[in-house]
């Protein structure tokens, strides 16, 4: 029998038809939608005079533009309010399940999907959001799509998609103290660049990956898009099954046993081939931080910004433009640089384990005077758990401001904006120019590094604070 990869197994079982010299007609099991990339798709359905073919396969929540304070009140920003109202109206009209503001499972779409058990191994999942790759942590093929494709899924539950090439990234060995899954993915992206996996779908493998919790795996898969990959996935195992068992939408009873038996078949055959492979040693990975304006521009927290040696032409110009935006010089270390804001949240690091990690770190400490510290849980469920576990109290005593769930300062569509010229160390996924507000300077790092920065007020290696 032909040896196939996990990715092949899931992809091939969802191809309705292959168009000669064209893409595959690709069937979608689950479709997540939010207020920003769905309204035009719904509008076009109306123009065509058609409806949503399989409404029970779509789940909606408003997350991108929502305020993170006073969520029980009418949204003040008129355009944001209109988008959220449009989402409610459309879900109601087409019979789509909505987890609205203020309800028990409201949150960032990529946080609530797994939390509800909607996300399961072997599924195909899409959403009009590039961080849909998060769900790959369960051994699902999950990726972001544009609004035209959102419309295709509504209309037909399929999209036209060419099968990407296959890449495997293996990380073997044990992670050092103070090194998290965020550091793993920032390290990988810094090695293969922000475009290094464009055209590929990535499978993450190796003992360092297998040892991670589901939430930590989600952080890795979440940032697959930041190296250009369409998505990334990890073979499901006992960790996956334990996470899913008992979740609201997870199969129950006999169905559960059947599902697990199938999920156990979802792995890459020994000897199956990939178009490209990378191997990394976990022992080489240290706490990471970005210094530039794309996620590939990352270094060790204790490292120095690369010099321009060997760069020329538009490569060098673009590099220097990026450093000018950040207010940094080639060759200088980042450690010790003063910071103004920290942000803990987003679909990358807004889950309960992230909040626990920060709380554990800052317990009994205070944030530095120069720091404004925002912590935004990824969902209502995460918020509730943080309260129940006493984490909120710890964080508030340390001077953090806890906000309500949403995408928040990750993309600053709402009022949670970092002011121009200010430095933010953020657990989110993108350090693009203006991503956290016009002129804002973002440095991406793990929740632990962010906690260390919050306490010291400057770029700090979390391992040094541990020692004290």
């Amino acid at each position: 029998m032909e040896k196939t990869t996990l990715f092949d197994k899931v992809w091939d079982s969802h191809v309705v038809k292959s168009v000669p010299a064209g893409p595959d007609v690709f069937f979608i099991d689950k479709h997540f939608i939010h207020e920003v990339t769905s309204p035009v798709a719904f509008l076009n359905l109306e123009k065509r005079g058609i409806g949503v073919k399989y409404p029970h396969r779509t789940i909606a929540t408003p997350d991108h533009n929502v305020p993170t304070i006073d969520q029980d009140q009418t949204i003040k920003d008129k355009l944001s309010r209109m988008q959220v109202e449009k989402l409610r109206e459309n879900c109601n009209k087409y019979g789509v399940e909505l987890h609205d503001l203020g309800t028990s499972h409201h949150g960032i779409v990529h946080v609530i999907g797994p939390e509800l058990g909607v996300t399961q191994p072997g599924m195909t999942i899409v959403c009009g959001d590039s961080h849909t790759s998060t769900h790959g942590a369960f051994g699902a093929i999950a990726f972001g799509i544009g609004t035209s494709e959102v419309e295709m899924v509504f209309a037909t539950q399929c999209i036209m998609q060419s099968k990407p090439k296959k890449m495997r990234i293996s990380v073997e060995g044990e992670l050092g103290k103070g090194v998290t899954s965020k550091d793993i993915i920032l390290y990988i992206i810094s090695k293969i660049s922000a475009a290094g996996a464009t055209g590929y779908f990535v499978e993450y493998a190796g003992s360092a990956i297998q040892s991670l919790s589901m939430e930590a795996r989600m952080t890795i898969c979440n940032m697959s898009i930041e190296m250009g990959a369409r998505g990334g996935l990890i073979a499901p195992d006992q960790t996956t099954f334990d996470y899913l068992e008992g979740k609201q939408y997870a199969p129950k009873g006999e169905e559960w046993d059947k599902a697990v038996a199938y999920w156990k078949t979802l792995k890459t055959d020994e000897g199956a081939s990939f178009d490209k492979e990378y191997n990394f040693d976990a022992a080489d990975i240290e706490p990471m931080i970005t210094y530039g304006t794309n996620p590939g521009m990352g270094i060790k927290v204790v490292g120095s910004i690369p010099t321009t040696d060997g760069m020329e032409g538009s490569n060098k110009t673009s590099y220097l433009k990026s450093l000018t935006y950040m207010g940094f010089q080639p060759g200088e270390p980042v450690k010790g640089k003063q910071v103004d804001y920290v942000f803990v949240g987003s679909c990358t690091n807004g889950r309960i384990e992230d909040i626990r990690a920060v709380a554990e770190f800052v317990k009994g400490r205070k944030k530095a005077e120069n720091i404004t510290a925002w912590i935004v849980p990824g969902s209502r469920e995460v918020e509730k758990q943080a309260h129940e576990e006493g984490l909120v109290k710890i964080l508030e005593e340390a001077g953090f401001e806890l906000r309500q769930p949403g995408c928040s300062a990750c993309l600053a569509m709402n009022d949670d904006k970092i002011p121009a010229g200010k430095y933010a160390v953020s657990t989110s996924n993108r350090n693009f120019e203006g991503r956290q507000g016009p002129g804002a300077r973002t440095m991406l790092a793990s929740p632990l590094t962010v906690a260390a920065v919050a306490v010291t007020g400057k770029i700090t290696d979390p391992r040094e604070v541990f020692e004290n």
Partner: protein
Amino acid sequence: MAYDKFTVLTSTAVPLPTENVDTDQIIPARFLKATERAGFGDNLFRDWRYDVEGNPKPDFVLNDPTYSGKILVSGKNFGSGSSREHAVWAIYDYGFRCVVSSFFADIFKNNCLNIGVLPVTVSPEFADKLLSAIEADPSTEIEVNLPEQKITLLSTGESESFDINEYKKSNMQNGFDDIDYLLNMSSEIDAFVADR
């Protein structure tokens, strides 16, 4: 929705040699709040094009009257980041019909093809040649011939062929979109679902 047919486009071009232009630069998130597809061109490259008071920044290429045209020639890894189709809507609404680069991000490229903006991938050398030619003489015309899959710098006659799959090519030439195709497959999709 059906869109404009694309066959042969001859136009001057706008050069933007910056690398890794992400979709947050093409259109920042705060301008994604519309519920209809209208007016996105006004905010194309918003934060590079205007200062915080909304005044045009004279050094940005879209504010330089020397350059105009329906073709945008950009640096490598164009369109990375967010999947927002709004980025392509902004490019289209501004008046571009074709983007040329030595390397495109995946989702961006798909989004282009889905609304009738042609993404043309050329070699890094040819991209440099185009950029230099446009910068040396902004009246330089470029011909993008979709049926022949060929892009030509008309001033020198230098050309390069580009890839596009037959299905997408035919869609672009006829102004068809994927939904037209998929809706015709409704019974096959139903049968597929019934088997699952």
